[in-house]
């Protein structure tokens, strides 16, 4: 019964937060004026702020949140592990590595969109490598091992790039980029990320039935007619496309893909297929809320989104672990 209220409720929450994200900002424009300018284009400066700064920012926050929530739910379902998160297969680290290389080589400054494109290339390389390492028939376990190896390699290479940084400013810029943010992004970022994300969402959305069957384990699922190899391919490619695109435009935003599915699981009766859509909405709501918070709490300090999600997500996760332990599971 909760499910019937849950999805509309989450949808409403996302809509309200999206609206709030459009109305909050340092420009200090009244809500009526902002919305009028957004819809009618009257008032040049205000329209510019609304259409070129706040709207793409809010859209990206929602898109990234949905990607993280959806792929987190799919990853946890596939690996049958509530501690799994989308970054586990090394996509986040590799996308960040690509972006860091673009920043360090100066390519990001020289060519428009070189930064997110390099991030996408990094994510693509991670997928190729993981499919090669984990093989076509391997189990969920080999996927985790391959993911850990790729994450470690990407992390090491990112450190190397920082280590060999040509000057401290470039290193600083890279460090700040890696913290994760949707500030100062334009519609070009939205249009670049959206096709990849949409493809990823479409791939992940097909997994519901297979994820449900995996509740019984790999052997039983295979005997129920689920093609596990195909499922894994869709999972890896879907996660890489959506989360890779998210990381490429916004840097690494942690804990959303881990906490949101965990939080919503009891509300959908723990059924993996029903968790997918709920987590996408929940992720969008969490990132929108976090992005509003960074603007409201310390407007003058440019607090990074990824810092806040980790700051809120980690204690929340600790609380969940504590609650799970108390229930004796």
């Amino acid at each position: 019964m909760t499910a019937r209220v849950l999805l509309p409720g989450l949808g409403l929450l996302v809509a309200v937060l999206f609206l709030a994200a459009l109305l909050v900002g340092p420009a200090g424009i009244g809500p009526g004026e902002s919305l009028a300018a957004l819809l009618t284009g009257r008032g040049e400066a205000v329209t510019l702020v609304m259409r070129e700064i706040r709207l793409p920012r809010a859209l990206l926050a929602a898109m990234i949140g949905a990607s993280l929530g959806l792929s987190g739910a799919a990853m946890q379902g596939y690996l049958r592990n509530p501690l799994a998160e989308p970054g586990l297969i090394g996509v986040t680290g590799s996308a960040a590595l690509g972006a860091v290389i673009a920043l360090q080589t100066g390519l990001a400054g020289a060519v428009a969109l070189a930064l997110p494109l390099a991030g996408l290339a990094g994510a693509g390389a991670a997928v190729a490598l993981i499919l090669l390492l984990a093989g076509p028939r391997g189990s969920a376990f080999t996927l985790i091992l391959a993911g850990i190896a790729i994450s470690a390699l990407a992390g090491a290479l990112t450190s190397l790039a920082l280590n060999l940084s040509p000057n401290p400013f470039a290193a600083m810029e890279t460090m700040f980029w890696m913290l994760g943010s949707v500030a100062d992004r334009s519609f070009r970022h939205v249009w670049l990320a959206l096709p990849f994300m949409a493809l990823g969402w479409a791939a992940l959305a097909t997994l519901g039935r297979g994820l449900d069957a995996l509740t019984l384990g790999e052997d039983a699922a295979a005997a129920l007619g689920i093609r596990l190899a195909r499922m894994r391919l869709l999972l890896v490619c879907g996660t890489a496309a959506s989360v890779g695109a998210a990381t490429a435009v916004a840097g690494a935003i942690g804990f959303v893909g881990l906490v949101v599915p965990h939080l919503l699981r009891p509300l959908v009766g723990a059924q993996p297929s029903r968790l997918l859509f709920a987590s996408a909405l929940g992720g969008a709501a969490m990132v929108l809320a976090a992005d509003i918070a960074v603007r409201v709490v310390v407007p003058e300090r440019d607090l990074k989104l990824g810092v806040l999600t980790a700051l809120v997500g980690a204690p929340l996760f600790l609380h969940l672990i504590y609650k799970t332990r108390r229930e004796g599971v």
Partner: protein
Amino acid sequence: MLRLDAFSVYRGPCPVVDDVTCEVARGECVGLIGPNGAGKTTLMRGALGLLPAAGESSLARLAPAERARAAAWMPQRREINWPVSVETLVRLGRTPHLPPGGRWGAADRAAVDHALARMGLDAFRDRTATQLSGGEQARALIARALAQEAPLLLADEPIAGLDPAHQIMTMEVFAELAAEGHAVVVSIHDLGLAARHCTRLMMLERGRLVADGPPGEVLTPENLARVFHVRAHYADTPAGPVFQPTETIR
């Protein structure tokens, strides 16, 4: 229902299932017996096409979706990975019958209700499956396999860990299924229950099918001594055949 022809499964160079030829027909409740490591699980998984194998298996030839409608499989490892309700768990058995993106129909609901009732789980319908006892979980998983309503049921040690009443009840359900025209292949270590409820026993020894026939013909003193290293007491009583292993042979 199931036909194996010169069927072998290799793990490395050594055959775990070695050149098995057999056929299981409707109406049969086949007990698959043999000591630990004889290849019972591997035979069933191989026959289903879950392992690469040599020789012919009528099931492994089918496409995955088609095979799932032809045979239900209950693995030995009782996995319930998420705290779903018992009803949700049993509904998973309907997976092969739902069309892509399809709706849940009356036949699906009836199959789930019937499976729950058969395993005595009506009162557990809304309970969280992971919080049940081991034996109750096993029954829920058997109900899941029953809800699949496949002509053939393969179950790997389904009654291990159940209390005596539910062991007997489960074997009776399998015998009923066979009587209704299904076929059941069940691996089992309790030779007494196997002798009472199975219409036929297949005895495996180191991957080879060494005896195949009615329980009285398979559970001979010679076979038991050679394959299981036990002596046993066997009697036909008014309450049915009674079989009890009594001592080991060194």
